[in-house]
């Protein structure tokens, strides 16, 4: 095991405590954002939390100035920096299992096998998936949704009147993500591995060797690396050229604790890593140097990490509501 990181940013962290499971941490526009499993949305440090849902928030997605949440009340809300949640979907009390944010004001969600896409004008389209999806992701180009389910992924162009395309690989697929250059589609799987397809020829990629499921991942700003959780280091796969096939991944931030959350800096090859014991590190890919952000806190797993758009601030939160805000020296 490498020596503990000597460089520390601990004194630049503002500690916050919420006493509630943190689902998402980051920034909505410039405002600090925390989304809690108990249903609260904290926007900024001072304002009272919003509670658009009747009860809990099950799933949340956020990008830029948009936050989409799905609750156990069957409702889907979109919240912007103004802090005024608007209901964009209602599945009549069924649990919302997955949400995704799409281009031009669009969003998608699923409840049971029913997947709904809402375009920027508010028009709804639905599709029945072969089994209950857990992961939804919009493609970076075109109006196209990937739906991960048992035995593969369905690729759906909601505005095209054609049968959705199916990418098949046996086993339950959990989350899904397109590479930023739209060349690869990745899924995490129940069996502690990732699967991937080259979209051009549907060629398969298997990324395995994890001791636990990958439930957090992040693409680097240049789109060439995918950092993943699920091992006692952040496992970072190379996606230049033909992707990770036949190449070994980078392992960064090796510690005797599993990585539970990862978030790439939006402008540099620096990765924020959260661990199951509450630690948070920053690792620079170029020289593997490490900076300590949090030495455990209350010791519960880091569940959320998020950078602001300039990469000057990092927000994080844990299972028990321990949270913090790192402000990097400018």
């Amino acid at each position, binding site marked *: 095991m490498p020596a503990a990181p000597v460089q520390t940013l601990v004194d630049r962290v503002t500690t916050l405590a919420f006493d509630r499971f943190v689902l998402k941490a980051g920034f909505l526009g410039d405002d600090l954002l925390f989304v809690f499993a108990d249903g609260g949305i904290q926007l900024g440090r001072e304002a009272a939390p919003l509670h658009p849902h009747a009860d809990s928030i099950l799933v949340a997605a956020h990008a830029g100035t948009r936050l989409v949440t799905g609750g156990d009340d069957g409702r889907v809300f979109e919240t912007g920096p103004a802090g005024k949640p608007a209901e964009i979907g209602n599945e009549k009390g069924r649990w919302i299992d997955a949400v995704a944010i799409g281009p031009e004001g669009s969003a998608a969600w699923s409840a049971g*096998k029913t997947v709904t896409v809402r375009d920027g004008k508010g028009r709804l389209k639905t599709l029945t998936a072969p*089994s209950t999806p857990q992961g939804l992701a919009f493609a970076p180009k075109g109006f196209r949704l990937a739906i991960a389910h048992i035995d593969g992924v369905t690729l759906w162009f909601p505005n095209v009147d054609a049968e959705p395309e199916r990418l098949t690989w046996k*086993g*339950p697929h959990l989350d899904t993500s397109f590479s930023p250059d739209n060349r690869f589609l990745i899924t995490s799987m*129940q*069996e502690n591995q990732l699967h991937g397809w080259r979209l051009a020829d549907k060629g398969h990629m298997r990324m395995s060797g994890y001791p*636990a499921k990958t439930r957090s991942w992040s693409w680097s700003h240049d789109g060439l690396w995918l950092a993943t959780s699920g091992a006692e280091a952040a496992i970072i796969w190379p996606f230049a050229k033909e992707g990770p096939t036949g190449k070994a991944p980078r392992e960064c931030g090796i510690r005797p*604790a599993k990585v539970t959350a990862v978030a790439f800096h939006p402008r540099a090859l620096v990765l924020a890593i959260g661990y199951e014991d509450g630690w948070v590190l920053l690792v620079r890919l170029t020289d593997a140097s490490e900076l300590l952000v949090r030495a455990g806190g209350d010791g519960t797993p880091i569940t959320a990490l998020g950078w602001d758009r300039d990469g000057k601030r990092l927000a994080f939160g844990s299972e028990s509501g321990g949270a913090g805000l790192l402000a990097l020296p400018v």
Partner: protein
Amino acid sequence: MSTTMTDKIPVTVLTGYLGAGKTTLLNRILSEPHGKKYAVIVNEFGEIGIDNDLVVGADEEVFEMNNGCICCTVRGDLIRIIETLMKRKGRFDAIIVETTGLADPAPVAQTFFVDQDVGEKARLDAVVTVADAKWLAARLKDAPEAKNQIAFADVILLNKTDLVSPEELREVEARIRGINPYARLHRTQKCQIPLAEVLDRGAFDLERILEIEPAFLEADDHHHHDHDHECGPGCTHDHHHHGHDQHGHHHHHGGLKHYHDEEMQSVSIAHEGDVDPEKFMPWINDLVQAEGPSILRSKGILAFAKEPKRFVFQGVHMILDGDLQREWRPDEKRVSRIVFIGRNLNEDALRKGFLSCVA
């Protein structure tokens, strides 16, 4: 990060063929004044729902694990629901999973052993099966699901006993015992039973697998403080059913019928002494790998040579969970015993295999 057994949320699995009375039992559990809050996972929203409790609809999505083990099926929807529920700790004290009448309990049980995230936060407490005293015998003939549910159970409520004669009741009890002599069997009407007999049983807790004698022997010991819903009167002698003639399908012992189910049996093998762990572990691992699909449940308490502690294991199909437990007491006989409940078990082969592990 270690989570002890007691920190984990207990999960009770409620099974039973259509119409046996599962919903009645569920409503009873939810409405009694126990001061506990339950999260209930149901397949159809029926006439349940107490204000205090969380009711979640599930879709019984069973899938095979992609690990080359064909009987290793799990409930994907349960993994998802339990992970989500665990983000709201403090909102409930226990989870109850009600399965549909046609469900096989194995995928539900296996979910807690196969999925690491679920296993870290929740523990399977017991499989409770509600059976209809009037119709069970017929269902055991024509519905493999009903037989699975009996074979798999840790606790069986033989319900609607008011609708059958004492003779019919003895008959159906004997049928149940022919399949699963190890479950606690309770006679009930309208599922009236003290909740302690159903909840917090620790049936999968290695620390609490104290004995693996057939339950009706155990029941005898409790007669002084219990009443009619333990094993009925007449259960005063050893029904240990291995060693009986396999070809005769029922026997009379002091007026009590004793059946062997053609398809589903239990096999219990004891050795009065130690076994060699170097021989036993590979044997049991290979056995469940090969025979896992036909072995529904397995349990064992073993005396390992030169080991002062008891080794206890339990299994569901191919999945085994075992550990060293408390020390053998000085006044306790070091006996190694294993039991299997399963389909078309080859008793001779099991016996030979086990006895070849003797130290």
